[in-house]
Each structure stands twice: as structure tokens, then as C-alpha cells.
């Protein structure tokens, strides 16, 4: 196990640097400069490129960047008056993480419960009801929910703040808008798994042994049905954290989503790199954790490394 973890960490570092290098090259292929004021004439723009060292050969810029990065220095943002990228990331990223994780946790728990519930009532009215609700949850984009929730629960019946990110009540609408999709996806997945697991021989055996219904469902059925669900949680987490942009926009949440897109369209090179690195690291780490989690849920998957 220890050797497996070490090997995985080695691969993670390699993957990370491949991402950094590819992003750097792709980013430098974007047309234009970070100096987007139309009033600057080409010679003035060139003078600014020189001041920022952007007129040097690409290879030199790359080596300099990596050297600084290894020392924990991500450079300064062009959009934000030369503010340190690390400072900006530390301010904005936790907000997006917070929003994303709240949505994931609430969505996953409720989705799992709904899936179990539907699976146990297979073919009945409650099953159909839950699944129609889930299909709607998947097909309707989160920003539609956001708009509806904001209008009905923020303006028409002002229960929650229309926008902002201060205090628990301000979390309700954005988290709910994001969680609906997670809930729906997890519910559908969970239901399918439950239906499948409940038809397995070992469930029949467990029932035949005279175990209570609760014991059958929770000890045997749910635990087994959960394995595939954990698989989708990894990519889902990444999708939610990177995809919360529109929700952050609608509810005026000072997260990183909007920032990331703006960095790309404005050629804010250090910010593009910093945000990509953070996302890449997070994604790589999530996959790693999900792999380790398999072992916890299902002993058969526990990686032995071949010989120990």
C-alpha cells in the first residue's frame, strides 16, 4: 500500500508538470497581449511588453516561470494592478471550494437517499415521481434554477438575500441551485445500482437468513450500491467546482469562476497559469482520494501492489 501511494504521488507530480507545460504553451498561442486598452498604440504596447519581460523568447519565459513557481511565486496579475496571483487565489478559491463542497455534500446525501428510496419502491408511483424529478434536475441547467430561486425566494417572497456571500442565509439559494444537479445525478445512479444489487443472490441469502429489512438494505444493499456512486463523485466534484461560474455570477459570490474566464479572455498570463495549476492539483488529488476510497468501501479493490 505504501509503495502504491508513493508511486501514485510520483505520477501525480509528473502529470502536474505536463499540465503546467501544456497550459503555458497553449496560453502563449492566444492572440493579442495583456494590454487591452485600445488607446495604446503599438509602440507603447511594445514598451509595456518589454517592461514586463514578455518580449523575451518563449523558452526563457518558461524556464523563468518554472523557476519562480518552484519557489512558490506565481507572479502578478495584469487585470488586478500587479497584485500577487497567490494572494488572489487564496482570497477567491476558498469561496468557490466552499460553495462547491456545500453543494456536493448536500446533493450527494439527498441524492443517495432519494436513489435508495426510489430503488426500494421500484416501479411504483414514488419511484416514477423521484425519477421524473431527477431527470428534470439533470436536464435543467443550474442557472435556470438560480434565476427561479432568486426571483421567487429572494424578490417575490424575500426569504433569502438576493445575492451576496455573508452569513448562512446567503448560502441557501446558490447552494440549492448547484445541489439540484448533483442530487439528480446521484439519485439516478443510486437507484439503478440499488435495483441491480437488490436482485443479487446475496440479498436473497441475507433475507433468507432472516435479517431484518433494515439490515438487508443498509448492510448489504446500500454498501454495495455505493461503490459506483463514489466513482462519479470525483469528476462531479471537479465539475461543480469549475462549473460554479454562472452561479457565482448570478449571486455575486466572490469566487474564482468568473475570474478564470476573464483571465483567459484578457491574456492575464500569470492568473491563467495560477488558476489552472490550482484546478489541476485539485483534480489530480480528487482522483487519488477516490481511488483510495474504493479500498475503504470495497475490500476487494484494496490495492496490494502485487506481492504484499
Amino acid at each position, binding site marked *: 500500500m505504501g509503495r502504491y501511494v508513493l508511486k501514485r504521488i510520483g505520477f501525480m507530480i509528473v502529470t502536474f508538470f505536463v499540465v503546467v507545460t501544456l497550459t503555458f504553451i497553449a496560453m502563449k498561442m492566444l492572440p*493579442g497581449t495583456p494590454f487591452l486598452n485600445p*488607446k495604446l498604440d503599438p509602440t507603447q504596447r511594445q*514598451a509595456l511588453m518589454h517592461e514586463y519581460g514578455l518580449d523575451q523568447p518563449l523558452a526563457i519565459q518558461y524556464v523563468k516561470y518554472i523557476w519562480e513557481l518552484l519557489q512558490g511565486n506565481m507572479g502578478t496579475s495584469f487585470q488586478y*494592478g500587479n497584485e500577487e496571483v497567490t494572494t488572489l487565489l487564496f482570497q477567491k478559491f476558498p*469561496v468557490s471550494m466552499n460553495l462547491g463542497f456545500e453543494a456536493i455534500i448536500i446533493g450527494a446525501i439527498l441524492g443517495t437517499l432519494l436513489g435508495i428510496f426510489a430503488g*426500494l419502491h421500484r416501479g411504483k408511483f414514488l419511484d416514477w415521481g423521484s425519477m421524473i424529478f431527477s431527470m428534470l434536475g439533470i436536464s435543467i441547467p443550474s442557472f435556470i434554477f438560480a434565476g427561479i430561486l*432568486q426571483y421567487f425566494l*429572494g424578490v417575490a417572497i424575500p426569504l433569502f438575500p438576493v445575492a451576496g456571500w455573508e452569513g448562512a442565509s446567503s448560502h441557501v439559494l446558490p447552494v440549492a441551485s448547484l445541489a439540484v444537479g448533483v442530487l439528480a445525478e446521484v439519485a439516478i445512479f443510486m437507484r439503478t445500482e440499488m435495483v441491480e444489487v437488490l436482485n443479487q443472490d446475496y440479498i436473497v441469502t441475507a433475507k433468507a437468513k432472516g435479517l431484518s429489512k433494515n439490515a438487508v438494505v443498509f448492510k448489504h444493499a446500500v454498501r454495495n450500491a455505493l461503490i459506483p456512486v463514489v466513482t462519479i463523485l470525483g469528476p462531479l466534484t471537479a465539475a461543480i467546482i469549475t462549473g460554479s461560474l454562472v452561479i457565482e*455570477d448570478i*449571486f455575486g459570490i466572490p469566487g474564482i469562476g468568473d475570474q478564470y474566464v476573464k483571465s483567459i479572455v484578457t491574456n492575464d498570463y500569470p492568473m491563467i497559469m495560477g488558476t489552472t495549476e490550482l484546478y489541476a492539483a485539485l483534480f489530480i488529488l480528487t482522483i487519488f482520494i477516490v481511488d483510495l476510497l474504493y479500498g475503504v468501501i470495497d475490500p476487494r479493490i484494496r490495492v496490494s501492489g502485487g506481492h504484499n
Partner: protein
Amino acid sequence: MKSKAKWSLVLSFVLALSLVLSACGSSSSSSKSTTGLAKDQTLNLASTADIPTLDPNLATDTTSTNVISMTEAGLTRMHNNKYAWDLAAGAPKISADKKTVTFTLRKGIKWSDGKPVTAQDFVYGWHRQNDPAAKPAYNFLFAASGIKNASKIEDPTNKAWYGKYNKLGVKALNSTTLQVTFDAPVPPFFYSILSQPQFMPLRADFVKKQGKNFAQGASNLIFNGPFVLSKWNKGSGWTYKKNPKYWNAKATKLTTVNFQVQTDIATRVNLYKTNKIDMVGLTGDYVNAMKKTNASDIHTALNSGTFFLYINQKTNKNLKNLNLRKAINAAIDRESFVKVLFNDGSVGSNYVVPKGFTKGPDGKDFRGADPVNGYSAGSAAQAKAYWNKAKKELGIKKLNLTFLSSDGAQYKQWDSYLANQLEKLPGVTVTINQQPWANYLKLNQEFKFDLAFSGWFPDYQDPMTYLDMWTTGNPQNTTGWSNKKFDALINDGKAQTGNPTKRWNDMLQAEKVMMADYPIVPIYQSGYTWAQKSYVKDFSMPSYGPQYDFAQTYITKH
């Protein structure tokens, strides 16, 4: 099993409960008297963007410029489109040749830390704007004003002079006297440009002490304007407090101004409707919607943004043909464009210098002279006639035009509207090419377009800011148009700073020459429409200066 089935019940219960709670919760006081000042002089606003920077060297956008204008002061301050003496005690002494202007600073003007604002602070601020190491992005305003040596110091190709900011024509004669020298007589717009962030003073000791942290947060700044920035939560908002040390603090009625960053217009409108903000700018569908629901709150103003199409006659030989350019110009129905797509106070324009922007030596608006509402663009029938002539002269039957514009939801609508009108000319097809802004600029400068949608906002309060960019070889003139008569009039206008009437007439003539030749297609002059609570008074959106001016705003009882 039963226990698990209940979560949905719990949820609906929570919802029901919160409905009840909200019914008790919304008890905002609303006494209807409108006389007298409200006790609480707090203004709440939403900004469409975060503050990119508060370093006056790096600020080029409206949000940054606006914050600096409210928290810092220059020699003058714009209010209702006129300049007033701010840190300058009054009109300066002007030498006989009009090339030396000497300002005396007001007595007792102070920074927010209590130290006096000195003439040396101005010199430092102006020098820093011309120091390449401080990476200034808008220093060309110094050259545009004709301040001595500025054009040489700011020209990167001038090796002998570039960056030698010590040679700029500005000097502190003593701590309260500032002398500015010019290459030619001082231009008439100099006093309004002094209100811009680039011309504000900076404290050398403070900037140096802060080093890399300068202007990165509310505590890394010092102020000398009507407000201080007391809080700046990046990404979510900022707060101004009245600056008691500002020399004219008695004119500042507001004690607090809160801004929250809200990039989504639906959200901003919802915040306005729930009384969380006191004013909201309206665009798109919200203009008509709010005109119906909140009619008495609606305000409209014309601003000084002009929008037009570049016509590339440098690499597209067909577009060198005057009749073709006239046909393009006449084919566009500007009135329906602004009415259908904006309805926000924008006006269709067939002119270069906007309305309500500057007054000449005779006190009349530039557009007050003939023609007031712009040149005649021609009817749809005339467009076809021009097009037929052009076809004959060029020997073509069909024409495809690439129409370059920036991307974004609103541009899709505008571009297709304009393309549709051009395609009414038989045989003309338009290919729309929408690009991210950075690439738009690149393609525009490389002349890789036939028509390009563009806009211009003034750098200083003078018609010249709209005109001199069209001279031969000017980097902004990405049309390839060149007209000797126009160039001569502009050069004369620039040389005639000592003779304002002659200069004014030169500019009027220059616009006439340009509008006979159609190097561009003017489309519209933009307007603002916004909703404002009735208890907010003296709030304005001027055509030059800060985008929002609330320096003297007050709140009445409500």
C-alpha cells in the same frame, strides 16, 4: 424505511416555516415625507465589476477611474460636466506667451494621514506617470495636453528622451506653487484634464514605503478627496466614508457609500427592487421592463461614447470607392437600431464629435453649429443608387464584407442587425467575425477586416480627442484613410491653442471634410438609462469625468 421517506416532508416544512418567518421579517420603515435630509446618509450601489487597480499609473478602466476620482483630488474636479478648482486655489497665472501656467494650491489641504498636500506631491505623481519603470498605461494624456517634452519622453522610439521624466515641464516653485510649462500655448481643455487620476498628486514617501503593496488594499492608500476608501473586499465590494480632512468636506453630505460587486444585471435589478441598492443602470430588455414597472425612478442621460464602423480601405481596394462607402453609410437605419436594440437614451449619429460634450469659445455646443443632428446619411433608396454607381465604377456585381466585432451576447444582436441592413443592398453579403477583445484588437491593427465595430470615449474634454486620431498614419486610424486637407486642419488646430476661435473653426471644418469622405460609418452616440430611488438627490452620470458622480449627493427623508 418510513423515517427515510420523510426528508421531502421536512423540506417542505422548512419552506413553509420560512414563508411565515418572512411575513414577520419584512417590516422596513417607510415614512413618506420628502423634505429635509435623512438621518442616515448612506448610499448603496452595485458595481458591474470589481476594482481592477487603484494605482493611478495602471488605472485605465471606468471602475478604477471612478474610485480614484471619488477618493483623490486633482487641481480641478469635474461636476456636472464643468470643472471647478479643487486643490488649486483658483485660476492660475498664465504667462504672456501662454506657455507657462502657475498654480497656487489651496491653504490647509491635507492627506488623510494629516500631512499637507504639497506642490512636490504633484511633481512626484506626474513624474511617476512618465517613468516607464512604474509601467504607466495612460501617460499619453501628458503629450496630448502639450506639456513640455512629454511627447518625447513618452515615445519609446526616441532613445535620447524616452523615460527621462525629470525633463517634464512641471516644477514645484515652493510647497504651494506648481509651475507647468508647455511646448505651445496651453490648450483650452487643460483645466478639465487636470481632474483625471493621471494628474493627481502622490506622496513619494508613502508610495516608496508601501513598495509592492502600494494600492493593493484600502490600508495601502492615502486619500485627499471627498471620500476615503475604508474597506475593499476584493471580489465582493468596497465602502467609502466621508473624508473629514478634505478641504471641501462641508459639501460632502454622504457619510457612507457601499458598493457591492454584482456582475449579473438580473441580480442588480432584483437588488434594486428589494431596496438593497439605491440605483441601478439598465441595459437590454431591462430598460423597457423597468420603464413599465418603475416609471418614476427612470433617468436618462446622453454620454460621450461614440460608436462606429471602421472601413478598411487599406487592404480592401473596393472600399476605396467613395460611392461604396456612401452606400454602406446610407444602408444603415440608425434610428431603428438605437430604438429597437437600446431604447436607453442612445441616439443615432452621423457625426464624429458627440452632442452635449464640449462648448466652443462662443459658448455653443460643438453640435450647436450646423449640422446639429449630424450629416444626412441618405435613405434606403439613395443607398441603392450609390451601390449601383459603385458597382459600375468597380466592375463588380457581388460583394462580401467581413464584419469584425468583439464577442459577447449583446454584440450578436447588434452585429446581425447591422449585417441584415447591409445585406439589403442587392448582391452584398456580410460575414460576421466575432472575436475576444484581445484578438479583435490584433486583427483590427493588422487590417484583417472589411468593417469593424468600434467605439470611442474621450480622453479630454475637447473635440480634438475624437478628431486627431483620423490623421494619416495615426495608430488609431485603422482605416487606411488619408486626406491632406483634413491633416492640415488638424495640424493647424493643434498649433492654434493660442487662438481658441481659429482652433474651433479648424475642428468644425475638419469634421466636415471627414463626413464628406466617410472613412468610418458613425452609428450612434450612447446614452445611459438608470433607475434611481426618489430619495437620492444630486447624483449624476456626466459625459466627461467619473462615470458616477456622488461627491455631492444626499439622501432625503423617506
